[in-house]
């Protein structure tokens, strides 16, 4: 039902374009459905739209080369692989790498650490840009909006290493924050040695760095909201907050749900770089996550097969999360990725 609707819409759109306008006739005339491939919908559509499809080719090629061909490398998850071995005739060991990982005592610790770090980051990091975007959008003075937007975007361009360097300067035992704490009569606190300080420091610094940048997409969506709707709401006596709730938010809801699905899909896919930079002997209990573990096993210990198995496991979790998020979103809001 839904697909047909989409097709009719597509036809309606393409009718305006001269070179494909004449093709739509034969099937409509013959009436009875034909089952040969040549006359199927696919061929039919293809004939009509092939020139547009050509534009897809570069994207398809790039995706194929860089995303699909390298997948054969996953085979090394089932091997005792070191670089230089042939992937096809390697040292096959079946699921040993996986059993080792699941049996390893760090397994649940890694899962827990990764999950907590990501989910906490997500809980704070997902709504923040939306709030910021709405706030910027409703600010009356457009000059201030532009200024603030620029200021908020600034931190995004600080390189990761520099950012962590700043954290060490500010939060080190003899850094700015501790100097302030001591001068106000408190005790110096080793932010980098305390397990409890790692997650807040990591998450807040990440969000500080990226909330402005992530809000751009919502600001763009908000600027597409019809001014007349706001005017109508005002005539109906809606307050500013009510207008946000009933005009702005519904308008950007499709974008929010797509972003939500994508963030949930990438939930466990947190990068290892920043965690690794912030890792110390003191906080390793909470800062060792799947990504840093893969890095250490694969690059430092040279256990490529084992690291690939762990990474593959992580990707499978991500895929499952993505599918769940997508299904839920489809059911409740009719917005979905696929």
């Amino acid at each position, binding site marked *: 039902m839904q697909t047909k609707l989409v097709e009719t819409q597509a036809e309606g759109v393409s009718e305006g374009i001269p070179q494909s306008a004449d093709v739509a006739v034969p099937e409509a005339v013959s009436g009875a459905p034909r089952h040969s491939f040549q006359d199927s919908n696919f061929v039919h559509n293809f004939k009509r739209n092939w020139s547009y499809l050509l534009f897809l080719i570069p994207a398809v090629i790039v995706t194929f080369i860089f995303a699909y061909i390298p997948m054969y490398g996953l085979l090394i998850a089932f091997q005792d692989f070191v*670089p*230089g071995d042939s992937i096809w005739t390697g040292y096959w060991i079946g699921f040993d790498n996986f059993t*080792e990982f699941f049996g390893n005592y760090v397994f649940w610790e890694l899962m827990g650490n990764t999950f907590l770090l990501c989910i906490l980051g997500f809980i704070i990091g997902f709504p923040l840009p939306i709030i910021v975007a709405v706030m910027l959008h409703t600010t009356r003075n457009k000059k201030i909006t532009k200024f603030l937007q620029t200021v908020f975007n600034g931190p995004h361009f600080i390189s990761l290493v520099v950012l962590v360097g700043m954290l060490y300067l500010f939060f080190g035992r003899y850094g700015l924050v501790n100097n302030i704490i001591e001068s106000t009569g408190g005790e110096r606190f*080793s932010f980098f*040695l305390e397990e409890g300080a790692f997650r807040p420091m990591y998450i807040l610094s990440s969000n500080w760095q990226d909330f402005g940048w992530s809000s751009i997409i919502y600001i763009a969506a908000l600027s597409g909201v019809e001014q007349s709707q706001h005017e109508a709401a005002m005539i109906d006596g809606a307050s500013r907050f009510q207008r946000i709730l009933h005009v702005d938010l519904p308008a950007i809801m499709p974008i929010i749900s797509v972003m939500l699905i994508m963030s949930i899909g990438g939930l466990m896919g947190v990068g290892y770089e920043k965690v690794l930079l912030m890792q*110390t002997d*003191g906080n390793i*209990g909470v800062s060792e996550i799947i990504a840093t573990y893969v890095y250490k096993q694969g690059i430092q210990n040279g256990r*490529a097969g084992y690291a690939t198995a762990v990474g593959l496991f992580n990707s499978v979790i991500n895929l499952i999360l993505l599918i769940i998020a997508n299904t839920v979103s489809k059911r409740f809001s009719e917005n979905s990725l696929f």
Partner: protein
Amino acid sequence: MKKLLMIGAIGCAVVLTLAGCGGGEQRPSNSLEALKADYGFQWEDSSKPILNEKGAQEIGFHIYSSKNASAKDYNDLDIMQTLYEDTNVYVEWENVSESIYGESKTLKLGNHKGIDAIYHAGLSSNEILTYGIKRKVLLPIDEYLDYMPNFKRILNDRADIEKQVTSTDGHIYALPRVEEMGLLQNPNLLFLNKTWTKQAIDAKAVTGIAEADLKDGLTLTAEQMEAILTYFKNNSSSLTGVGDNFRPLTFVNNNWQGNQYDLYGMFGINDNTDHMIVKDGQIAYTVLDEAYFDAVTYINSWVKKGLIDQVSFEQSQDNFLANGKGAEQYGAFYWWESETVVDNPENYICCAPLKGPKNVNGHDYSNCQTVCVSNNPEISTGELIIFKDTPNVEVLLAYFDRYYMPEISAQINYGPIGLAFEEERDANGKLVAKNPPADMTTDELRLQNAPLGLCYLSGEVWNTTVEMEPRAKLRLDRLSKYEANFVPANVKPVPNLQFTEAELNTLTRYQTNIGNYLLNNLLKFTRNGVTAGDWESFKTELLSTRVGLSEVQKVYQAAYGRYASEN
């Protein structure tokens, strides 16, 4: 149609680009007879060139090596030029920084196109098993020992070296570096600020020592040390003027030297960064020692009182060194020498190990006085590896054999004659260290001009060929007086051991976890304290099959048993 053609062309271009990564030249390998006849190959006489002029032109090797950030390109090093002139063997070096090497090592071992050997290879026994025994990528060097007269002599003289470099399958896959100065076993010395301690004595903050005692070799009890450090702590602003960077006692957490493990000596524990030593011929884990719990609680009490600044657990070696410069900030510190740490080393005296406290949890440690025994090996195996398919490998091995000649070894390790050593030998015919140029320190000169790596500097070489540099002599002197004397006879460091494949699998499985588990928990306990119950559950967990210390201990014990029985 034109479009289609264009797409086809782009497609072809992509395929060609992908296929373009390949190719490479094949160098001919000559038979021994051909090498001898055409290129004048000889190896018996180490004072004559290995190849003739034609050989210098036509035979060459490409060697991959990491280098220290401040070192010159190895192609430009004087010692490499000297070696080329002496041997006529042409070697082209490809240098990468040490940090890059760590990550490129496995890739280069896997795909070594165009590379004949890796210098500073740093292969672990696990990697030697993978690439030497299993994949057979590495050249079994023992089959070519005849071309290496110097190295062969070393192996004949020193059964212990032979045992440490020979893999479990009986082959030697890597050449070692041997630097036996006796400096590595005890990596820490305790230095104490003389002026400040004098003030503490004057203020009667500490009893039992007089001002006259303040010279090298001072023995303090834990209680006296605590009193002195407390005095430092309470009077920091009057002592330094600037309070911010003041540290009563400091070190670098878990560093290979200058670490905290001499403190555990107060409890009779010879701890080290691996927490593993050989005691009475058995592999022993120091953390399982009865006294370790008391040691942790006692050291934690110093941390709590601020006598050991917490920054000691956080700082890097660079921070530690930088902070010591300028105005005096350190009351006491652990390092291998005072000169690199503070600007006025004269004001710091070198103490004997601390004596243990009288009462910790009801136990008396006042008779305990020992130090850290590290497992830093003086013989590092895996320093140079050669790939199996290297052509004319006999020539290359004869060339590297020259590195083991005493005078070459000295220059490899310290820098060339004329720069690091005087041109003139001393009365005993030994090489004498030369003073560095005014704008450089000895360390800088050495790092810049010496490649380090393959060398053989044994006790015998120090006696006959090379005069030890003054700093090393001073340190040796201090070590023998204040450290080595205090190590009990039944305690030895763990030597380089050779493992079987099954043993290595166990090690790979558990070792990283154990390392992290110990590091993390001991740090937590030392900083925040630990209850007896927590300590017991920590030990139970450590020995369980989940963390697996008992498994690893068995493996080490078996490997050490083999090592010891062959002696």
